[in-house]
């Protein structure tokens, strides 16, 4: 028996899938149109209220009662339960996939970039705009802390932008090269 989530049930929205990350643990949370909730595929009977006073949230989870304070911060949520503060990152399915792509070097719209991992000087650019590259190809040589570092293409694609040339000083996280994965789109432009 799953009790509908009163407040949420009133809004006829589509089923949503979220991924919440807490201290390196990931939870997949599904909220369906009737407010039914599944965590990692398991159904839970959930009733929650944000009380008008003091920002307290009351959670009844399979009749277990917990009080918490939940507050939004810039990139995460803070949840305080029984003295312990949890920092939670909440992403819907799409945002989660995109952030995964970004972590693997792939961008929002089929674009990937090569960024400088540390401040340094560009020794050589080994590609030119419009050139096709394979994942793992050396694209940039960066000198930093008296060491030469090879920066490689994160995916197959076409080099669409080169923002630096040999001899340039670059900062940490500066975008050096953009690679488009999508050959079709590239062709139409």
């Amino acid at each position, binding site marked *: 028996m799953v009790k509908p989530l*009163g*407040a*949420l049930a*009133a*809004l006829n*929205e589509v089923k*949503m899938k*979220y991924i*919440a*990350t*807490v*201290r390196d*643990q990931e*939870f997949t*949370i599904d*909220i369906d149109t009737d407010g039914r*909730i599944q*965590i990692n595929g398991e159904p*839970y009977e*959930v009733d*929650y*209220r*944000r009380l008008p006073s*003091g*920002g*307290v*949230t009351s*959670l009844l*989870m399979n009749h277990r009662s*917990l*009080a*918490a*304070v*939940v*507050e*939004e911060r810039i990139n*995460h*949520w*803070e*949840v*305080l*339960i*029984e*003295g*312990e*503060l*949890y920092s*939670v990152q*909440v992403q*819907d399915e799409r945002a989660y996939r995109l952030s995964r792509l970004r972590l693997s070097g792939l961008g929002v719209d089929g674009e990937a970039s090569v960024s400088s991992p540390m401040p340094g000087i560009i020794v050589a650019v080994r590609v030119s705009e419009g050139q096709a590259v394979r994942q793992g190809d050396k694209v940039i040589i960066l000198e930093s802390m008296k060491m030469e570092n090879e920066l490689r293409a994160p995916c197959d694609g076409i080099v669409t932008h080169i923002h630096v040339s040999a001899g340039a000083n670059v900062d940490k996280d500066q975008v050096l090269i953009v690679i488009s994965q999508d050959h079709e789109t590239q062709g139409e432009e």
Partner: protein
Amino acid sequence: MHREDGLLVQRFDKLLIANRGEIAMRILRAAHELGIRTVAVYSDADRNSPHVRFADEAYHIGPPPARESYLVIEKIIDVARRAGAGAIHPGYGFLAEREAFAQACVDAGIVFVGPPARAIAVMGDKLMARSTVLAADVPVVPGTEPGLSDADMAAAAIKMGFPVLVKAAAGGGGKGMRPVHRAEDLTGAFESARREAKAAFGDDTVYIEKMITESRHIEIQLLADAHGNTIYLGERECSLQRRHQKLIEEAPSFVVDPDLRRRMGEVAVAAARAVDYVNAGTIEFLVDRDKNFYFLEMNTRVQVEHPVTELVTGVDIVQEQLRIARGRRLRLRQEDVQIKGWAIECRINAEDPYNNYLPSTGTITSVQLPNGPGVRIDTGVFEGNEISPYYDSMISKLICYGETRAEAVLRMRRALEEYRIMGVKTNIPFHQQMLQRHRFMSGQFDTKFVEERFSMDERGAPYALEAALLATLAAHTQTQEAAQLVAPGARDTSNWKWLSRWERLRR
């Protein structure tokens, strides 16, 4: 009445509190209970602080840095004059142990709620304090005079037995201090301690002290009136500290029996009499494994941890301070003081126990304090309060009472769970974990326990799933609400009206 030593005690009806935060609140409450009108002072950072609202009058004394506000003697005296305050209570910290401030009050004809200036001066000087209490037969940690030759110090070290500490005479904060475990290491320790002392203090005089290992920090609370009556209110166990900052205090102590309490109490009274002490004060002792105790220093003020003593003796120490300053005699004789039950205090600090106790600054976004039987909380913070880098990181003191130590501990665990504060990180998880440790429960700890044998258990995240769910529900609700707010004209009522209807629907 002016005493021979210059101390002024007389009746007053208006009190200036030269402090801020929880101790200002504590003193304000005591004064109001005695029918004394109150004057607060505040810096730019404290205009919104509760002590300003709780006082009958409040005066601005300057910018946030303490040296430009709470530490400026002339400004405080000037406010006292303008407000017509007959007395000043310094609290702890800031000007509380400045001889010049106590003297400035007396010179202005204002009662200083504390001891005579001379007692502050003597007890504030390590070597003077040591020789003064030694003359009153108070045991001190065995050691040499400063400035002896290396050969004389080595001979003294061998006589008192190893380990010993080589210490800088001008020292403090561990600088110029060297533990020595063997006679052959003495010469090297003299050299390096002198080098460090010279660099830090410009004075390379060193001396030797016996090193007391596995020691506890136990202190005796005293009250002395201006008529020569001095009593002790039992002990406080303050061994749980980190970098000389106390974190948890309790009364009584696990290791003090009635006989030891009486002996320590009588020695503490003798130490106070040696400086003609008046008002509330504390003698700190080091207690070794064999229950030998040694005078460390005297704190010539009310202490942060005074509430644990209040709870087990029933004495309101701050009210007594005010009565003593008004020239009244102590109402209690020594035989009237009884220790009943057990009290524990946890200092709640804005610091991150998971990240090397790094201070945490920010704005308090919500606070709900614990409550219920046996719980006392002394605090000066509020929602919207900015925890700034200008003042110390203590947010509040949580004090719990029980008939037994176990009951007090269980109550403290419960209260820590109830304590909700957001916006800064606090050391509440440290207290929760400490109160679960076997060593804490069995009372087996010394002053090095927190630093050397305690570390936070980082795996403890019992509510990770619930936290994930709550944050997700909050995010989901927010998205849904935003989706329902539409452009003006697209709905027949305003978004505000619609939102409030929706809010009603949710209840």
